[in-house]
């Protein structure tokens, strides 16, 4: 028995089922990311105007050229997924595989760059001192009585390791989620987004690989599957279009 309305539209909704289904799912995703964006607004507006927990400018901690490149990668993956779907509509399976392959590759590049950025953050430290200041740089060593750090050198090429006694240290933290509210919301938003990219890539990889079996028997239904997977992928791109300026540029 065939699943009804996979290709032909239902009379009441005017849509085939998966089209309505994916849009309902995307509506729920809007609420998920919306909740986190409202958290961002709350954290940012309530951040102190001065001191170590003052809300930083994105460029203080995040690499704008890398973020811009990642944005271009995701936008490119959106057009390749459309061209893949269009190839199926034009009855060209091999072109579809090229374009879907390009989409998956763009997703891998995006995640690879994200992993590099995260790794860089986890190896960058801040020592919060009792005077209410923080010194950032590369941690050399940490012991019971002291910590040694190579401070970030602004304008200088080489900076010497600096020793800090435990008595003057409040806390030491890498630029992970616990460093500050900025990093907490940065990792939450971009981490959840990266999980969505990964999930989308799994679906795209299935459609690129074993999923193409359906093309031989039900080409229109397979084309519709690719279309709804593309809709999810565009949503992931759309979220990043907001994430990038909010976190990196403002």
């Amino acid at each position, binding site marked *: 028995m065939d699943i009804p309305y996979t290709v032909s539209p239902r009379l009441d909704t005017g849509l085939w089922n998966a089209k309505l289904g994916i849009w309902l799912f995307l509506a729920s995703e809007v*609420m998920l990311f919306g909740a986190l964006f409202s958290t961002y607004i709350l954290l940012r507006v309530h951040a102190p105007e001065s001191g170590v927990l003052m809300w930083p400018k994105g460029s203080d901690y995040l690499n704008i050229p890398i973020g811009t490149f990642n944005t271009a990668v995701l936008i490119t993956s959106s057009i390749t997924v459309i*061209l893949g779907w269009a190839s199926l509509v034009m009855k060209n399976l091999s072109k579809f595989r090229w374009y879907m392959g390009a989409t998956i590759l763009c997703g891998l590049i995006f995640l690879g760059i994200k992993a590099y950025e995260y790794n860089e953050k986890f190896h960058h430290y801040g020592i919060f001192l009792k005077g209410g200041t923080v010194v950032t740089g590369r941690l050399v060593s940490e012991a019971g009585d002291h910590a040694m750090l190579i401070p970030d050198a602004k304008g200088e090429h080489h900076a010497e390791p600096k020793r800090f006694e435990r008595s003057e240290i409040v806390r030491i933290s890498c630029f992970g989620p616990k460093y500050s509210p900025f990093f907490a919301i940065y990792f939450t938003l971009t981490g959840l987004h990266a999980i969505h990219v990964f999930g989308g890539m799994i679906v795209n990889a299935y459609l690129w690989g074993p999923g193409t079996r359906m093309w031989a028997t039900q080409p229109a239904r397979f084309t*519709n599957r690719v279309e709804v997977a593309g809709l999810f992928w*565009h949503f992931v791109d759309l979220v990043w279009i*907001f994430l990038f300026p*909010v976190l990196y540029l*403002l």
Partner: protein
Amino acid sequence: MHAKEVAMSDTTDLTHFKKHVNVCIGVFIALLVFTVITVAVAQIDMGKSQNITIALIIATFKASLVAAYFMHLNAEKKTIFRVLFITFIFFAALLFITLGAFYDYIKL
């Protein structure tokens, strides 16, 4: 427009479909250009709230291009718009609830 209609259509529909694909390629180029514009404008210090406003206006414009053309919303059925309208109401309510925190400060 969905795949079955196009798959069984005549040359006119395919021509129309190819035109839609070309429009999407144009939108792709526009998105890249506006990404560069977003970054460039962010380098100009116009005051914090002005920078935020302009960046969000550009981001909203880019997002609407993706929604209208890539996600094909500009030709979609009314059912989808009804769903998205309800989503918009709830999203606005979510942000409104967050604003309530500003008027109910807990001083520790």
